[in-house]
């Protein structure tokens, strides 16, 4: 089974993804993450300095994205591994963002209660002013969280 996600599954999937992000960041010791706002975009365009993207296939087809600043990306990775930011190499940041996307996708799978969802290996990008687009026909929910004084965006395309 594959193909577009039926409308009645889109909301539960997006909810599962949101809850998963909050759970992952909370259990990985980030104390202040707050849901800020949600928008619908007609394309899947990830904007930021530290981004992770992952394709979902199988029972549902879609894309998951994460984007934040380099500062917060580095801070998040430092917290999940338990090492100070100055001990992290640039490749630790891409690795960490990719694994973060994978963890959040894994949590979504567990919470969505839909069997047969597969996650492709994630990709991560770190740099200034990244704008990455993945062509897709589905709408994208862009969910913004406040992380400290910064923002983190979660992209759900199902």
């Amino acid at each position: 089974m594959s193909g577009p996600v039926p409308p009645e599954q889109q909301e539960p999937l997006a909810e599962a993804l949101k809850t998963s992000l909050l759970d992952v960041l909370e259990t990985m010791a980030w104390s202040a993450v707050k849901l800020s706002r949600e928008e619908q975009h007609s394309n899947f365009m990830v904007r930021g300095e530290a981004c992770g993207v992952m394709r979902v296939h199988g029972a549902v087809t879609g894309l998951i994205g994460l984007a934040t600043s380099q500062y917060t990306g580095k801070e998040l990775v430092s917290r999940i591994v338990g090492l100070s930011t100055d001990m992290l190499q640039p490749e630790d940041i891409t690795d960490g963002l990719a694994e973060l996307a994978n963890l959040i996708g894994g949590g979504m799978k567990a919470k969505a209660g839909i069997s047969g969802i597969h996650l492709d290996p994630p990709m991560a990008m770190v740099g200034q002013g990244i704008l990455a687009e993945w062509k897709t026909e589905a709408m994208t929910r862009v969910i913004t969280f406040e992380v400290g004084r910064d923002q983190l965006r979660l992209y759900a395309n199902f």
Partner: protein
Amino acid sequence: MRILIVDDSSVMRKIVTRGLRQAGFAIDEILEAGDGQQGLEVLSNQTVDLILSDWNMPNMDGLTFVREARKTIQTPIVMVTTEGGEGKVNEAIASGANGHIKKPFTPDTLKDTLGKYFA
């Protein structure tokens, strides 16, 4: 207890290490390998008490690693992965894995799943 963590992500190896320490397990040493092939190399000249392995890795994936390791050793192997589908878990168990931990995990999950190997 000596533990081998097999994962292509160095960040994930650190997360697992941190989780094991937070779970309060008595650990003497943690060895790391970046893929199944490296895992086998470690096992060819070192003895460990528990192996935690990722599923998706370059060179040699987790399933092949389990099959190859089982040709020579019977050390418990627990898969740590987001590939939590029943079919895949059963395939890993049939190939010789002893259990499965779903990512994301908490120190409590690690305690529950791995406690018996530290008893």
